[in-house]
Each structure stands twice: as structure tokens, then as C-alpha cells.
């Protein structure tokens, strides 16, 4: 057990931080274009780092992903590293090893920018919720239905869509993954800006035709890969939240040391000092559950998901508190769009609500509590 970064990890953190600070500013995403920075990001190798060598990666793993994401959080970058480099990459890796060998090198090179279209409005955190239908039609499939909150869709040059080929709305079996061109006939894409200046889309499928060749993995067997990909996505988002909180905390610290009220600097007020102490405590507890999640990321699915739910609960609660209080300690200026701190709060809110709120994950853990027997408790 060792919580110290290796030298390589230190260098990775530093270089990501330097690049993002210089090249990706706050709130760059308000105009809806696919990011200019993507080619550079690919060039820097960040997409390769967490992926295995068999697909052209550098053989890093979830630890490296969290290091990168923490830096993304720190500057509130909007580039879809998590959507492409984590969720889509892990999905492809887990779904279809043959395809992975073909597709991931292109993803690493930055040419292939797949975005996973999986979320549906009524899912509310339930991964297996898939209502979009794929019906066999000769040797093709016809997809109809809706996806929403497809974050990063504006940067995509390919969608990977989860669709139901069998079973009921929340069955784990019967979910199939399809790779679809962004301009496929019958596919309507409505882009919308999110409050944290990332862009998302609602996708409406009206008998979109997909050939059998474009099924990723086995028909009906998509759930495992989705679960795997979203586990990695959730962890990445938790790490991002740590970066968000850390930066919000230090911006606030610096602000209250200079800002005066009633003739003295704000940092001399004990109530504010103690509030900031609470913010630091929450930040470090949040960081600790990210580390804990890393210990579980390769554990059996149930254990892994329980650990991730636990992390998301703590992270969600912490990030709302830290960023909310960051605004509070700033006073009026904290509520203005042109100052930075409010944007940290907005990112906090999207993190809290995107992959199942902390309340959703608390309900998941509560279910586990109910299933524990006295014997388990005693052990």
C-alpha cells in the first residue's frame, strides 16, 4: 500500500496540468464546436496512457486516468477525454477484443472519436435501463428510440449506441451495442449546452439502419461492457471532482486572504476559517474514496460497483458542499458568470447528477445493507 505517485505519475500530472492551464481555459465550450485541442491531446499520448499495449496503448490503467481527470477538473476543461478516452475506449475494450485492436489505435491517434450513446431519460442511474429498440430486418438492424445526455456528442465522429434486441426494459440480457455514423439517415441530433459549458446531445433514432457488421461484441451481450465502461467513467468523474474541489478551495483561500470587509481581511474571521477547514476535510475524504475505488476497480463486479457507489455518494456530497461554500465565501462576486468560482459549482452539479446522483447510489448501498445477514455483520 503506497499513496505516493511514481516519478512517471508525477510527470504525467505535471504535464497534463501545464497543457490544460495553457491551452484549455475556463468555459471554452460555449460555442458548439468539436474541440480544437483534440489532435494535440492525442499527440500528447494521454489517450494511449491508460490502455493496454495490445491495442497500442502504453499499459497504464485507472490510476493514470484519475491523475489526468483530476487535472481536467482543476481547470474545468470541457474536452471529452472522459467520454472518448475512458468510457468509449473501455467500452470497446470490454465489448470486442478483435474490434478493439482495430479501433483503439485510431482512437489513440485522435482520428476516431466515438461517443457512447447509452443514457436515457428515465434511467436515473440504472445502467441496464435501455428502451431504444433494435429490430432485426434481414441482415440489418433498425434502431428506433431516443438517447439523451450524450455528453461530448458534438465532438463525435461515431456513436456507439446501446439498444435492446431482447428482454424487458431493465433486463441485463438483451442489450446490444451498435456502431453508427453520426450522419446516419434517420438519426436526428439535437445539441444542447450543459450548465458547465460542456455540450451534450439528444439523439432521436427513427428506423436507423445498421448492418450486422457494426454490432460491437455479441448480440444481446452488451451489458457487461457497458457496466465496465461506466464503472471506469464514474471513477474518472470522481477524480475530476477532486480536481474541481481542490482548485475551488485554493481559489477561495486566496480570495479571502485579500478581500476585506468591516475593515479587515475576510480570512481573519474564525467562522470563515472553520468553514474552510471543513472544506479541506471534505476534499481529503473525497480524495480518499477515489483511492479506495482504485483498489476495487478490478474487483468482482458487485464489490466494484459497491465501492463506486460509496465513492460517488461521498464525492457528490463533498463537491456540492465545497463548491457551494466556495461561492458563499466569495460573496456576491461568486455568483457572477464572469468570475471563475461559480463555474466550479456548476461542474459540481453536473458531476452530481450525471451518472446517478449520490441519493441514487445511497439507495444502492442501502439495498446491500438489507441483504446483509446477522452472520455477515458478525464476521
Amino acid at each position, binding site marked *: 500500500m503506497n499513496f505516493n505517485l511514481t516519478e512517471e505519475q508525477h510527470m504525467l500530472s505535471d504535464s497534463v496540468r501545464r497543457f490544460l492551464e495553457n491551452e484549455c481555459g475556463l468555459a471554452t465550450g460555449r460555442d458548439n464546436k468539436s474541440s480544437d485541442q483534440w489532435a494535440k491531446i492525442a499527440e500528447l499520448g494521454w489517450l494511449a496512457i491508460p490502455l493496454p499495449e495490445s491495442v497500442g496503448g502504453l499499459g497504464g490503467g485507472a490510476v493514470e486516468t484519475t491523475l489526468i481527470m483530476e487535472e481536467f477538473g482543476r481547470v474545468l476543461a470541457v474536452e471529452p477525454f472522459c467520454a472518448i478516452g475512458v468510457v468509449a475506449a473501455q467500452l470497446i475494450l470490454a465489448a470486442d477484443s478483435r474490434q478493439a485492436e482495430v479501433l483503439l489505435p485510431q482512437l489513440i491517434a485522435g482520428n476516431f472519436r466515438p461517443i457512447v450513446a447509452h443514457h436515457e431519460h*428515465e434511467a436515473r442511474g*440504472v445502467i441496464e435501463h435501455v428502451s431504444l429498440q433494435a429490430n432485426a430486418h434481414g441482415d440489418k438492424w433498425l434502431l428506433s428510440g431516443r438517447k439523451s445526455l450524450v455528453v461530448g456528442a458534438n465532438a463525435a465522429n461515431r456513436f456507439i449506441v446501446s439498444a435492446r434486441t431482447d428482454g424487458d426494459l431493465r433486463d441485463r440480457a438483451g442489450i446490444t451495442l451498435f456502431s453508427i455514423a453520426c450522419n446516419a439517415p434517420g438519426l436526428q441530433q439535437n445539441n444542447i449546452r450543459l450548465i458547465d459549458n460542456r455540450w451534450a446531445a439528444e439523439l432521436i433514432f427513427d428506423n436507423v439502419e445498421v448492418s450486422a457488421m457494426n454490432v460491437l461484441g455479441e448480440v444481446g451481450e452488451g451489458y457487461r461492457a457497458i457496466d465496465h465502461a461506466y464503472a471506469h467513467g464514474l471513477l474518472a468523474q470522481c477524480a475530476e471532482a477532486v480536481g474541481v474541489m481542490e482548485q475551488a478551495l485554493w481559489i477561495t483561500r486566496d480570495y479571502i486572504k485579500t478581500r*476585506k*470587509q468591516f475593515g479587515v481581511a475576510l480570512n481573519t474571521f474564525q467562522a470563515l476559517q472553520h468553514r474552510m477547514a471543513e472544506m479541506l476535510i471534505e476534499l481529503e475524504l473525497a480524495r480518499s474514496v477515489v483511492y479506495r475505488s482504485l483498489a476495487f476497480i478490478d474487483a468482482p463486479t458487485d464489490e466494484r460497483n459497491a465501492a463506486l457507489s460509496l465513492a460517488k455518494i461521498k464525492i457528490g456530497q463533498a463537491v456540492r458542499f465545497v463548491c457551494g461554500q466556495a461561492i458563499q465565501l466569495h460573496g456576491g462576486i461568486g455568483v457572477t458568470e464572469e468570475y471563475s468560482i461559480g463555474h466550479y459549482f456548476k461542474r459540481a452539479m453536473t458531476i452530481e*447528477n450525471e451518472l446517478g446522483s449520490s441519493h441514487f447510489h445511497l439507495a444502492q448501498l442501502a439495498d446491500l445493507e438489507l441483504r446483509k445477514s446477522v452472520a455477515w455483520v458478525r464476521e
Partner: protein
Amino acid sequence: MDFQIDPADEALRVEVREFLRTHLPADLAQRGASGFHPLRADQRRWQRILFERGWGAPNWPTEFGGTGWSHLRQFIFDEECALAGAPVTDHGGLRMFGPVIYTYASSELKARLLPAILRGELFWGQGFSEPNAGSDLAALRTRAERDGDHYIVNGQKIWTTGAHTCDVIGCLVKTNPEAKQRGISFLCIDPQSPGISIRPIIDIGEGYSLNEVFFDNVRVPVDNLLGEENMGWTYAKAVLENERATSAEVPLNKRKLAQLREIVQRECSNGERVIDLPGFAQRVAQLEVDLRALEWLTLRALTEKSGGTSLPYGSLLKVRGSELLQRIGEMTVEALGQYGLYVYAEPEENTITAWPMGPDYAPGVTADFMYRRAATIYGGANEVQRTIIARSFLEL
């Protein structure tokens, strides 16, 4: 002690509700309920309607065209208006400056200003805060120097709500820079005056209601002084005292909670209502508990005479009312799912139509939630309120 509401007061509630049902235009109510900042045009129309009903100034005495209602009746009126989604009326003119005018101003000014406010023809911006005088209002530095029958005003105001659409800015200015609180005066300034520049402040809900206002040798007729010179601090205190019982914003909180309840009943997950998901009903119930407690603390404040040993109701109510607004908002955003994360730009007209995506109750919820992060800051930050409570009442 009597904890039942007077039947006559209850009758007023029924009357107001009926009036709103028949007289509040639907397009105004739609925007009013949405959470977006009110439009001046809407406020103007609505004020005119209220004026015609004789309810233009619920908090003013009858002799100046007000209703002469008790605090409790005003509260009932506010509640019904909020629940119906009526546009917020002009806080500056009706609540902050009106009372100063009818109490302290010359009869000339009374005649010039009060009827215009009542009829919705004179809207006010609030020029209190300055960059270095937020919660510490007495530290303000905008100066007004006498030059013949004018004041020459120099300085800067911030957080000036509606400065860009108002007819007059009510400013606190320093007329005696030597004194601190005793050198402050109330001055009405025409926002079109030469030397004034207005810079929009966009809030984190991406809405526009706030401004910075810069005064560069602005000439203001001495006639525009409210009451006596250097007495502004006394007037401001009186104004703030009037606010004490309403600082929990119970009517607004009620509307927000009703909206949350509607959303958790309408939004579904896999065929189940969101309210039926684990924990949601208990969270709504907890908000209801806290709202009712605030409501009854407000009722106490409304009916109790203020006095030396009295509780600092305004501070108590401000702290928990603003927190509650934020808690309700946070849960509403969550209840909306993805729609809570979308930017629905603030519409420039009152009819809200053709949103790109989502149900009609979604636009404005998150914008308002974001804006209300300021609720624990504006009107004297909650930290300042706690200090007031500790010092004034607990004598710590």
C-alpha cells in the same frame, strides 16, 4: 393566544385567489412561475392591474393609495400571488423607497413619486451596495457633493437590480465623508443622466438582472433628495426593519416546493414516479417540515410588535429561508434529471415557447437555482446575520 387565522383574513385569501384566477394573464403567470427574472414589461402590466383593483401597494397606508392591510394580510396576499406565479412587483419602489418617501419626503416629492409607483409608471433600481460595501453597507464611498441646487455624484454601485430598465435609481450616497453612518443620504437619480454608465452583470444562472453603475460627475437636482440630508442611515434602517418578517421568503419557498412536488410526481423512472424512488418522499417531507416551521416563525414575526427585547426575527428568518430556497432548488434540479443540466437561455419575452427539449416545467429551474446561490449572500450574508443574532440578542 390564538392560533387560528381570523375568518376575515381567510376571506381575503379567498378573494385574492379568485382575483388572481380571473385577472392574472396566463402569459405573465407562465414566466412568473418559471424562475426566470421578471421582465419589466410584465411587471408594468401586472402593477397596472393591481392598481386598478386597489391593491397597488399592499404595504402602504390608505392615505397614500395603499391597502392599509395588516402585516398578516400582506403576507397572505404575497403568498397567493407567489403560488399563482404572478410577476414579482417592484421591490424597490414599493418596499424599499415608497415607505421612505411617504414617511420622510417632502409633500412635493410624495405627490410626484407615489402615484407613479402605484400605477406602475415608475420603477426603481436599488443603489445600495458598492464593491467594498456589501454586507458592510456603512462602508459605502459614492459621494454626493452639493453644487448649487444640484448634487454632483461620483462613485460606483454594484448589484443594482434592474438599473438597465428602471426609471429611477434609489441610491445611498455619502453627503458627509467625515462621518460614517451619519453622513449618508437617500438620493433619487435618473439612470439616463449624463455621466452614468451601466455595465451588466450576468449571474451564474446566465440571467441578467444585476448591474454595476458608475457615476462620473452626475448632476442630480437637490429636489431629488429624500427626506433630510445625512439621515439616510436612519431611513435605511427603517426600511430594513419593514423587511424583517418577510426575509424568509416563505411565499417564494412555497411556490418552489409546490413546483418540486409537481415535478417529482410528473417525472418518471421506468414507469414509477420519481417521488416513489427511495428517499425522495422523505426528503420532500423534510423540506415541508422546515418550510412550515419557517412559516410559523414568520407568522409570529408578522403579528408580534417589534421592540427592544424582541427576537431578531429578520436575521433568524433570513438564514433559514435562504438555505431552504437552496435546498429545494437543489432537489428540484436533481428531480429533473438531464433537464436540470441543460442551459435554457433566459427568454426575452414573457411567453416561453418552443424550448429545444424537455418538459415545460424544466426551463428556468436551474437558472433560478443558480441565481439563488446568492440568497445566502444578498440582503446581508448569513454569516453577518448570525453575528447580529449573537451580538444583539444573545449579547455575546
